[in-house]
């Protein structure tokens, strides 16, 4: 395969990964790394480096659309980014110390876990929780536009949310994914932040988290321009296209198929890691 053929192949695959990732809300990274390693035989460390870069691109590219809606909370985002960036540094440091096989096993488990999370029904957000003293002191409580005007919300369980965010950052730095599913879980389930606020704030945080580990990966020589170039351009194009289609398309069956694909990829990553064929 020539360089041009290889680049085109990776580009096409990345467009598909970015497109599906945006449509299903799972992000391009979860399918990108398995695609590069399982189908194209790329070493998992190169694949993770390229994926991290694409995660920053999609998160930052989608920010404009999210800001227009007015749901994201910059204080919650900034406060939790302390946890995710510290976690990302830890994850990137860990990635250099453990074997490719172990990374593959963790990746497989995370894939299966995120497929499960994406299948859960979305909460209705009718809950009203009392103000929490710590959250109030940190000025995390906020408001967002609703059908009947401005709705205020309170934030709960700050230490638990912070700890989960550190974990999400570690996974992001270790596996080169945005780990949006876990970030939303921490905000929506643990901290009782409304779902819409959780998803949009999570998107903002993904780019900053990935940037923290990308610096380490770059310095360590895990980011190869020849591979990261088609991946970044492809995922960016695919996700922008996916966000456009998302508004019109019925994504229910697509979500179902995609989570099945992710489970299969997860099992394969798990198997390869356990059998040492990676």
């Amino acid at each position, binding site marked *: *395969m*020539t*360089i*041009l053929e*290889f*680049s085109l192949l990776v580009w096409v695959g990345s467009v598909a990964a970015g497109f599906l990732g945006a449509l299903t809300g799972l992000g391009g990274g979860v399918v990108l790394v398995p695609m*590069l390693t399982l189908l*194209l*035989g*790329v*070493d998992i*460390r*190169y694949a993770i480096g390229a994926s991290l*870069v694409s995660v*920053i*691109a999609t998160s*930052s*590219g989608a*920010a*404009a659309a*999210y*800001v227009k809606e*007015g749901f*994201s909370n*910059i204080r919650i985002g*900034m*406060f939790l*980014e*302390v946890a995710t*960036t*510290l976690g*990302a*540094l830890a994850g*990137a440091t860990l990635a250099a110390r453990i074997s490719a096989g172990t990374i593959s096993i963790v990746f497989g488990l995370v894939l299966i876990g995120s497929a499960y999370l994406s299948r859960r029904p979305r909460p209705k957000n009718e809950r009203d929780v009392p103000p929490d003293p710590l959250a109030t002191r*940190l*000025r995390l409580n906020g*408001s967002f536009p609703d059908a009947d005007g401005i709705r205020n919300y309170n934030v709960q369980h700050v230490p638990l949310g912070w700890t989960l965010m550190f974990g999400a950052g570690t996974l992001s730095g270790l596996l080169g994914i945005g780990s949006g599913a876990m970030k939303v879980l921490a905000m929506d389930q643990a901290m009782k932040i409304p779902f819409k606020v959780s998803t949009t704030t999570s998107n903002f945080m993904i*780019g*900053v988290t*990935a*940037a*923290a*580990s*990308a*610096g*380490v990966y*770059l*310095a*360590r*020589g895990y*980011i*190869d*321009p*020849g*591979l990261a*170039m*088609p991946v*970044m*351009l492809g995922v*960016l194009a695919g996700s922008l296209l996916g966000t456009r289609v998302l508004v019109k398309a019925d994504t229910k069956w697509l979500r179902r198929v995609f989570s099945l694909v992710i489970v299969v990829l997860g099992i394969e990553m798990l198997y390869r890691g356990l059998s040492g064929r990676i």
Partner: protein
Amino acid sequence: MASDRDWTDRRMEVVISNLLRFGVLLSALVVLFGAVLYLVRHDYPHTDYRVFRGEPSDLRSVGGILRDALALDGRGIIQLGLLLLIATPVARVAFSIFGFAEEHDRMYVIVASIVLLILAYSLLGSAWL
């Protein structure tokens, strides 16, 4: 007072989202330019991605990437574009410090500064030249 804060928050978010879009667009254009040079030049050895070797030292540090990019090396220019992309969320955090300062929110000036320090450590602490 509360609505005043909300309004400044909104304005801050709009500026931030424009900043992010600009950063992504700029880095994508630089990567694309580097890609053309990289693909047109045929004498690059084909990298075998199945075996992990790690990048040469000039593609690992800010100084090395700048030198390669100025020499119009395709791989160096792509790497410069990726560096701009990594810098985009960093610029976002830096701008937030300014925004929080304008709101006289001392606590969040400190929080955002901590995030910026962690990012700076990741980018520069490992290798600068």
